[in-house]
């Protein structure tokens, strides 16, 4: 049982790490501010979600699971709103037709 859970953790955390990698590559390669925002908000939030998912079986107490999920939801809300706010600022700084 423990082994299965550990394998689940390893798979999910690795997938999360992969999306952090993808997000960083996107930040490095994408051409302008707005496209880079896509890379940041989507890939990194998914990466965090997968890390959280992978850590769920490792939680020491049942309530820690709730906290982990809450952490992800807060980060998601922050990412979604900040992404939009930044997009507006970026659009204003360099207006694209």
């Amino acid at each position, binding site marked *: 049982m423990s082994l299965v859970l550990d394998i689940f953790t390893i798979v999910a955390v690795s997938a999360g*790490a992969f999306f952090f990698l993808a997000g960083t590559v996107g*930040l490095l390669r994408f051409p302008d501010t707005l496209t*880079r925002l896509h890379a940041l908000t989507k890939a990194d939030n998914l990466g965090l979600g997968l*890390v959280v998912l992978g850590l769920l079986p490792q939680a020491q*107490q049942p309530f820690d699971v709730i906290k982990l999920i809450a*952490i992800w939801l807060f980060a998601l809300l922050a990412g979604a709103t900040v992404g939009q706010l930044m997009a507006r600022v970026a659009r*204003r700084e360099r207006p694209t037709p």
Partner: protein
Amino acid sequence: MTILDFLLAAAAFVLAMVALGLVRILRGPEDADRMMATQLFGTGGIAALLLLGVATEARAVLDVALTLALLAAFASVAFVRSASSSEGDDPKETNSP
């Protein structure tokens, strides 16, 4: 290699990705690019923190991550507030009494 070692390594990897993304972002060119750094650090930092915390079995890490996630948008909001303009859908501020 135990699962805890794996989580530590994953934390280091996520941190490295964040650091790499930071280079790109901090170079700009726009302020919005720079502000993305805080968002990136918010998400990546929370992930690394959770991985480190679970790896070292420190439960208090969850509360730290909860705080970080809750305040993840805070710096960006301060930025958006200061980068004001006259557009209708954006925050404006005035000094008039």
